[in-house]
């Protein structure tokens, strides 16, 4: 029983982690609080749904397609829409407010386009909805895929960020955006790359989630909210933080639902959130900011 609950919790947490990792890159490195993040996820879900229902294309192929599309889309959004804001903002605070307002508008643009194209109906299809037996617990294959993807992407990107020169540059920009150019780092380019990478991660998450979760054109904001909690809990800009915070949330929800009451899952999530922030104000893996 305990093992079953543990595995179910990890698998649920995998979804949360997968959704949150892109946002942590965008917010942590690019310093853009992207409120349209959830819409990017849903757009990818729609892509997978449309390809699968009208052209019978395997959602796994859509996954490979969606990642570069998400990358290019976010790259363009940053270049066209956010770069001018970054250029004109004098302080980090001003940029934060500007980016929140701008992406809040973007949220409605993307949502409106999706509403026009697909309408407001519930969309669901199922793919890979069979049980996989892990230590006696039957786990949905599509959810397991989300966990594996979260671990692989999270681990891979972590290695990339810590072991390569390129990653070191990204981290340098995250820590000290104004000093990074002094050592020859093209901060603008690094920030744009990180934002686009975040978009690619969101698109991956969207495709995987569409395999098992019902969505509508307007559910994006739910994902943004959840991702934001995970990001802040894990420490802004920290991939391993997002990964572990996501898994913790999944475990808490599942254990509370099993041993206490399913009605208290949300309360428990926010309690843990509060507890971690009291204990470590800048998140699990966050460095204290001056």
């Amino acid at each position, binding site marked *: 029983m305990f093992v079953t609950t543990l595995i179910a919790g990890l698998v649920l947490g995998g979804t949360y982690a997968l959704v949150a990792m892109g946002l942590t890159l965008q917010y942590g490195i690019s310093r853009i609080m992207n409120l349209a993040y959830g819409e990017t996820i849903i757009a990818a879900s729609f892509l997978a749904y449309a390809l699968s229902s009208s052209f019978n294309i395997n959602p796994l192929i859509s996954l490979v397609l969606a990642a570069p599309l998400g990358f290019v889309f976010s790259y363009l959004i940053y270049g066209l829409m956010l770069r001018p804001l970054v250029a004109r903002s004098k302080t980090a605070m001003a940029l934060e407010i500007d980016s929140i307002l701008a992406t809040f508008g973007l949220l409605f643009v993307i949502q409106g386009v999706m509403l026009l194209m697909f309408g407001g109906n519930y969309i669901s299809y199922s793919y890979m909805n069979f049980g996989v037996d892990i230590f006696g617990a039957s786990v949905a294959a599509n959810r397991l895929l989300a966990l594996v993807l979260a671990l692989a992407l999270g681990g891979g990107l972590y290695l990339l960020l810590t072991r390569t020169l390129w990653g070191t540059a990204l981290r340098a920009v995250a820590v000290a955006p104004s000093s990074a150019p002094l050592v020859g780092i093209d901060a603008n380019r690094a920030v744009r790359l990180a934002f686009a990478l975040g978009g690619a991660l969101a698109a991956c998450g969207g495709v995987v989630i569409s395999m098992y979760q019902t969505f509508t*054109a307007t559910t994006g904001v739910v994902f943004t909210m959840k991702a934001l909690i995970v990001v802040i809990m894990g420490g802004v800009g920290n991939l391993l933080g997002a990964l572990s915070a996501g898994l913790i949330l999944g475990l808490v929800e599942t254990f509370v639902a099993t041993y206490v009451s399913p009605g208290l899952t949300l309360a428990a999530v926010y309690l843990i959130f509060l507890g971690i922030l009291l204990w470590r104000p800048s998140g699990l893996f966050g460095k204290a900011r001056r």
Partner: protein
Amino acid sequence: MTNTSRRRALKTLSLSAILLCTTAGFSAIAQERTSVKIGYVVSKTGPNAGGAGITTIPNYVLWAKEVKDAGGLELPGGKRLPIEVIEYDDRSSAEEVVRATERLATQDKVDFILAPWGTGFNLAVAPLFDRFGYPQLAVSAVTDKAPQFVKRWKKSFWMLGGGHDYTEALAGVLTKAKAAGTINGKIAMISVADGFGIDLVTAARPSFKKAGLDVTYDVTYPAGTTDFTPMINEAAKGGADTFVAFSYPPETFAITQQAQVAKFNPKVMYLGVGTGFPVYGKNNGPNAEGIMSLGGIDPKNEANAAYRKRHEDVTGKAPDLWGSVITYASLQMLQEAIKRKGIDREAVSNELSTGSFKTVLGDTKMEDNQLRTLWFGGQWQNGQFVAIAPVDRPGATKPVLPKPAWQAK
């Protein structure tokens, strides 16, 4: 002196304004009417859009098109007037639905207002409909308090029954199955902690108790829950072979998928809103077989079958198998009442309340401003969501129990 004169001037001005307004009103009445204005406020965006987009909006669109194709709304004496439709989106916000409904009544001065989607939204606008004297044909609202509402708001009509009706019908089916030895009479029950789930589970507890059924697991979960694995595992443990979930569509879909993954095969599986969506049957194929829910249709009813075909031709999608047909019938009733009584809202409300109508449901008549001839329970059988309860109503199909086991894909 100047003061007084200004005051007087203002008085004169306001008085003349009032007079002008009244004359304008008179002249509007005296003027020959060229159209009938119909307005409605419905959730086109936001969390309610999924429900409104299947049960309400397509039927309003279909009806408006049919009236237009017929050359307009027929009035007493056979004259036809074209309809002018004014539509607002309430963005799934209760404040917005009230504001926009008020606008329809006071600014657009529409002749009739069609009801919004959802129990809460219909309750939110009911005082407004009452104050401005519009009949309210509330279809997508499930409430046990309808008899009280009818007394409070005389022109309100409640057409989808109350939670109690549905749970009594379910208890009836279960009691029969228990007596036949098909099920052991133990029930595991989960419900969403939101309007629909709370109403239904509150009605279900006494219904099951009265029927001598034993509820072994009874929990609520917050709306928006996506992972039901823990609840399914717990429900399976208690020895219950009946699983009931009063859920919203995204959860209904998720429970169906996750029960398959967990190889959870109760003998009776009863799920909430969304089970009666055509897409449910399409997505789940043979695995939808035997699953029960609220609503259902009589597959042998020809008027209903013809309606379903028209709905699909005009809106491009099939109607759901619970509230859609009732929504359409409510519009037919309104249309017929206008044909009999004209644009006089008072007379139309009276006619709706006392008259008898031919609709896609057959001969339809309100009882105490409520529609009571309804299907309270249905089951997927051979790719159709057929009505199984109330069992004594003509046209009811016999339930197939136990539910067949999940098929591997």
